[in-house]
């Protein structure tokens, strides 16, 4: 049976690559980018549905966009989500410096600001329900609530993820696993902020103009 002798390996640059391994964090990050692509497609579908269902006949005699939008509340939500993303940027700076206290502090700040966003949104939707405006009233309202609430649920899951990361960084410090999760959460949080910009532009601003 043929074997690859040492000679062969040296003359041909080797048939095998000993001690070869892959960059775990880069692979995880790419995987998360790919997940976000699929998530972006979900929002693309919802925005398309919202676009199709936002003609006056889709309102079926129910309230139109102008009745739903509270510009000041939406503006406050925007500030909250942007400040939260900025705070998460602080987490990344602290991670680069290797400061565990900085990461934990940044996570708390991002969490609180994110929670303010979710709280404002819950309050806003609650006010609509109190006014008797429900998703089952018309095709237009169905699309409106589905779009806004899908984004809100994403934000809530981001908060849950942040809470878990706070706990893991506090107890385990910076391991491969906690670091790539912090990096992926950064991607997720920025992505949700971008989606909010789209919701804000195509839903809230259109309602005010």
């Amino acid at each position, binding site marked *: 049976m*043929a074997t690859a002798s040492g000679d062969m390996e040296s003359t041909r640059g080797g048939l095998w690559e000993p001690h070869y391994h*892959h960059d775990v964090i880069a692979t995880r990050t790419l995987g998360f980018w*790919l997940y976000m692509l699929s998530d972006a497609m979900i929002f693309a579908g919802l925005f398309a549905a919202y676009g199709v*269902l936002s003609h006056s006949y889709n309102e079926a005699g129910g309230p139109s966009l102008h009745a739903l939008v509270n510009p000041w509340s939406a503006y406050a939500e925007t500030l909250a989500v942007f400040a939260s993303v900025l705070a998460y940027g602080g987490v990344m700076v602290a991670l680069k410096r290797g400061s565990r206290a900085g990461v934990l502090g940044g996570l708390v700040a991002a969490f609180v600001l994110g929670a303010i966003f979710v709280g404002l949104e819950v309050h806003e939707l609650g006010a609509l329900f109190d006014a008797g405006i429900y998703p089952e*009233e018309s095709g*237009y309202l*169905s699309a409106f609530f*589905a779009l806004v609430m899908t984004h809100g649920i994403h934000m809530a899951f981001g908060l849950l993820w942040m809470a878990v990361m706070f706990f893991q960084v506090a107890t*385990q410090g910076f391991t491969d696993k906690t670091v790539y999760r912090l990096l992926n959460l950064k991607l997720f949080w920025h992505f949700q902020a971008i989606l909010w910009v789209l919701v804000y532009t195509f839903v809230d601003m259109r309602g005010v103009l």
Partner: protein
Amino acid sequence: MVNVQGPWSPILGRLSLGAIPDNPIIAGAFIFSVVLGIVVLGYLTYADRWGYLWREWLTTVDHKKIGVMYIIIGLVMLFRGFVDALMMRTQQVLADGPHSPGFLGAAHGYLVPYHFDQVYSAHGTIMILFAATPILVGLMNVVVPLQIGARDMAFPYLNALGLWLTAVGAALIMLSLFLGDFSHAGWVGLTPLTELAYSPGVGTDYWMWAIQISSVGTTLGAANLIATIVKMRAPGMTWGRLPIFTWTALSTNIIALTSFPVLGVALGLLGLDRYFGTHFFTAGFGGNLMLYSDLFWMWGHPEVYFVILPAFGMMSEIIPTFSEKPLFGYVTMVAASFAIAGVSWSVWLHHFFTMGASPRVNTFFSVATMVVGIPTGVKVFNWAFTVYRGRSRFETPMLWAVGALFMLLVGGLTGMMLAMPPVNYSVHNSVFVVAHFHTMLMVVVYGILGAVTYWFPKVFGFRLNESLGKRFFWFFTAGTIMVFIPMYTSGFMGMTRRLDYLANPALLPFEVAEELGIGLYLVSIYYFVRQLYVSLRDRNANRVSADAWGSARTLEWVAPSPVPFYNFAVTPRVHARDELVWRREQGLEGAVPAHFEDIPMPRNTAVPLVIGALALGLGFGLVWRMWWLTDLSFVAIILTVIARSFVRDTDYVVKAAEVERIEKRLRQGAAEAARNGASASGIDVLRPRESSP
């Protein structure tokens, strides 16, 4: 939350004894399943294989075993889908003309219309999503990491999760047979027929949640395969050297990753309509029916290319091996794959040319559809030129690949006919269309059956029986011709699809011919099962060395057969597009590493199986509206995911000495196989052995 018709209780939801169907056919299927289940469980207990099953299969993260399980699920569901086809053919041959007899309470034939509708809906859903998709995902799972020289997928745990979510979808569909009913609105779920007002039963919910849960699995699997191909390639495996099957896997998974979420949205919004009373697709209150058709086919058409591109990849691997020549036109083959993937996004409207879009819109989609013919034509000529002046050997995989070429020709040309809106207007919803897409899906089935035969020895270390495989091929092909040529003809004669009763007795001869074709398929299935049995029985006489076919070309054939759980003892360095051919020409075929090293491997885990079980609870609870089960399963899934993230000990190390022992045994087995065609080398080298830290 909307109120539903009929009784509901907080514990059982809509479930009651009345949900058990009292139909002799279903009773027969139930008894068959129970007997089969008792036999399997009895064997596992008798042979004391439960521990083996748990350790080696249910909790595994090995990409090859996960792939094999995907393929097993797919083959079981393929059989179920075939039985549905058998039932439809038999109904149509019996219910032909006003004087045709009726049995089992049906006016004509033996299936009442509501039951017949469920049968064709189940057939389509199963064949596309639970037969073709899992088998293809399974084959990509097995082959892609080997072709690129990786130890496993990029995310082995996620891989197992995708498998179990697919299994949950299949399980929900099987459950619907014995508990409640299945959707009667076609596999596409036409709105507003699928709305609660018109489909108040649980059938639509079974259909919706089975697809929704399994498609989450497919999406995760797609992200995993793309990350694997981009990040896990061995040194020297440049993009220009990537085997074509891996290229098609990449293009097809880009389709899956971008299109399955759209299906999720379509079904999710339908779910909101059915559970919360919203008005996305209702026929009033500002709903829009066409929104559903658009969203569904924005997934549906890319899905068609999702299933056919890997089949093209399989043909591109099999044809060069059995022509003993390099593939003709590698670069154009890659370009054609991505061209097909790209165009797949701009043709969805051709599924409803007759639905009243303007001529301008129809023209765009008509031209876009015809454009698909260009890259596909490039592929066909590339395969033809590969065979040209090659040393062709018609072993079983090659027969399937060439058969697929013929299917592609017939299906592709009828597809070009259907791409013309005027033609489409006259044959829309006729069985001509049905015959067209079945011929196309036969390309996929032929590719799959060829690929299973081709790569089987790589995973199991022995080849499948040739003569029975050839009988399987010929009976299957005869069946295909007998079923689908009459179907094309009767379609031209004006026979529409989904008929439980044929008013025109002149169609009877065609129905009889199709029934005979189904009989030929039945014979071919017998030979397939016999082929598996005989091959397993005589496995020691059919052992193979690393290159199972003597003329294989790509990197996966450098690894030993059966391939050990860590794939390559030392990561190979890649020098050429057809690495094995390069090594053969350099006189290095069979070269093995001189030194071994410790290999880090992912540890087995039961978490994906647990999440799968909880997802089954979630799906079942949603179908029957048992809110306690739904809430419990949902919260438990989230808690399980969080708990798993606290597990730090997810990998282990296989010691160099252990690797050397396994490799030595494999080489001895291969040497013996080469010497006397028999070997004592067992399949147990596939089992991972955890060495103590």
